[in-house]
């Protein structure tokens, strides 16, 4: 099995223990960081997303794959920066004001990173002003997460704040979280809605084309 295929399978299996040495071995053997990123990591995470949507992978499987991917990416990042490899896009994510739930948002961040996006994770209980400030520092997509019907209004408030700051046209806004629906996303003027982390990747890719 060649080294790239080996790394692909290790990420798919979520084998955090061996991914570091395999990536180092591949680099030593002359495989480029960019090749490892695309054929080893992104390809594997794409398959993870597919298996999750199929109902074969669940949160535990997705998480260990994402963690293995993050270990590998940590090694590759400086090399990718050096050779001028650009991320697919920059995504600012956060759970909105009043809401402290973050695992869904974290999974979205990991899957987007696994697809080649650069993530600026603002955490949870994030005010509209904090989102505005983050966009002022650069971003292509803003991802808003809420778990509660009671905190969903903060999504609309954030979109309005970006509009008031003259930044609305600069970014695409996507929303998600258990109580969020496509209808709600449309009602508040978001650019898209995704039901889970894997579908968020598909959505984000479509928005940066």
């Amino acid at each position, binding site marked *: 099995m060649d080294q790239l295929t080996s790394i692909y399978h290790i990420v798919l299996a979520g084998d955090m223990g061996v991914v570091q040495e395999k990536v180092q071995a591949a680099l030593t053997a002359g495989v480029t960081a960019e090749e490892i990123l695309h054929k080893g990591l992104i390809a594997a995470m794409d398959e993870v997303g597919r298996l999750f949507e199929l109902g074969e992978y669940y949160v535990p*499987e997705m998480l*260990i794959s994402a963690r293995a991917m993050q270990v590998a990416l940590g090694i590759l990042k400086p090399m990718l920066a050096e050779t001028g490899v650009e991320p697919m896009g920059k995504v600012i994510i956060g759970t909105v004001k009043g809401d402290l739930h973050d695992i869904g948002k974290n999974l979205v961040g990991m899957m987007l990173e696994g697809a080649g996006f650069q993530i600026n994770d603002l955490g949870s209980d994030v005010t509209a002003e904090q989102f505005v400030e983050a966009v002022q520092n650069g971003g292509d997509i803003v991802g808003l997460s809420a778990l509660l019907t*009671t905190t969903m209004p903060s999504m609309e408030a954030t979109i309005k704040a970006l509009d008031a700051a003259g930044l609305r046209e600069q970014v695409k806004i996507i929303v998600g979280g258990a109580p969020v629906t496509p209808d709600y996303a449309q009602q508040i003027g978001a650019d898209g809605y995704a039901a889970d982390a894997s579908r968020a990747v598909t959505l984000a890719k479509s928005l940066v084309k």
Partner: protein
Amino acid sequence: MNSRERVLRALNHQEPDRVPFDLGGTGLSSIHITAYNNLRRYLDMPKTQTRISHVAEQLAVVNEDLAVQLEVDVRPLMPGLSSKFEYVFRDEGAYEAYTDEWGIGWHKPNDGGFYYDMYQHPLADADTLEVFKNYPFPDPLDDGRFETLRSQAEGAAAKGKAVVLAGICAGITEVYSWLRGYEQFFIDLAINPEYVACMLDRLVEFKCAYWERALREIGDLVDVVIEADDLASQNALLMSPKTYRSLIKPHHQRLFSFIKDQDAVKVFYHSCGAIRPLIGDLIDMGIDILNPVQISAKDMDLRELKQEFGQDVVFWGGGVDTQGVFYSGTPDQVREDVKRNIEALAPGGGFVFAAVHNIQADVPPENILAMWKAWQEYGGYV
């Protein structure tokens, strides 16, 4: 018939005179303090001291005057706090915080916060089995937990109400995930099964100690006991059925069997979300009641659930869609939703009406009243 007879008929899959009604009978069919105070004002009820029954979720104790007015058929039995624990709230700038008896840190934003959420997990960095084995648990048998149970139970029984006894902690996987942090919990399910086995074992023992004493002391007065564990989210199980059956189910089995061995009580089991793939497993393990019956989750159509499982399990919940019309719709839309849900779940008994989970702060009192009126209008069997 009185409330207790009504509830027992429903729990035994027989049709009573009307569908029993629950608001505040459990910590999973209750109401946020904000919505509660709004409701009392809306109904022009006398100003009275309103108290919190569950600190983290900020649930209200439903005062007896409202429970009577709304014809609630169920009364909760709440264990007291351990004498070794008290809530000590800390001012942490933008948050108010406390540490619970397990050592888990909870905090609530001062500005716009509705509940306390976890932010410190004492076993987040644990990386040897020894740490899990030796982590100090609270005392399940502290007298403070049991002191008022009999008087509460006798009070409820004297009023002819069904009596529902709560436990002293959340579900075994819930407590494990709260001690560990959610991400690490999911990773443990994938690659650290020995940690999972150790902790779920210890947590089952903890719960069994409580249930043994509680049911020995007041089992004669208790109709229903509550257990819980969130196994699913909006669209899917949180872990594969295979993972559930190998790592978690044996512990659930041990727990439910133990409870059933203590006394002839009905076991009320709560799991949020899209749990349909595991309902059969839960029924096989002996649970009697399923809650909250989250209509809005995937594959949780009430008619289908009633058809497939209605002979074997009681649905306690499912009354109105809390993720949908209940907070965002008109009273007429609430009425239509309730009518539809009662039509699906009521036939043949096996249904106790409650909102899907606790009524949240954003539910207008007009909608709560619309729900209640619709239950009055459509909840009769005769």
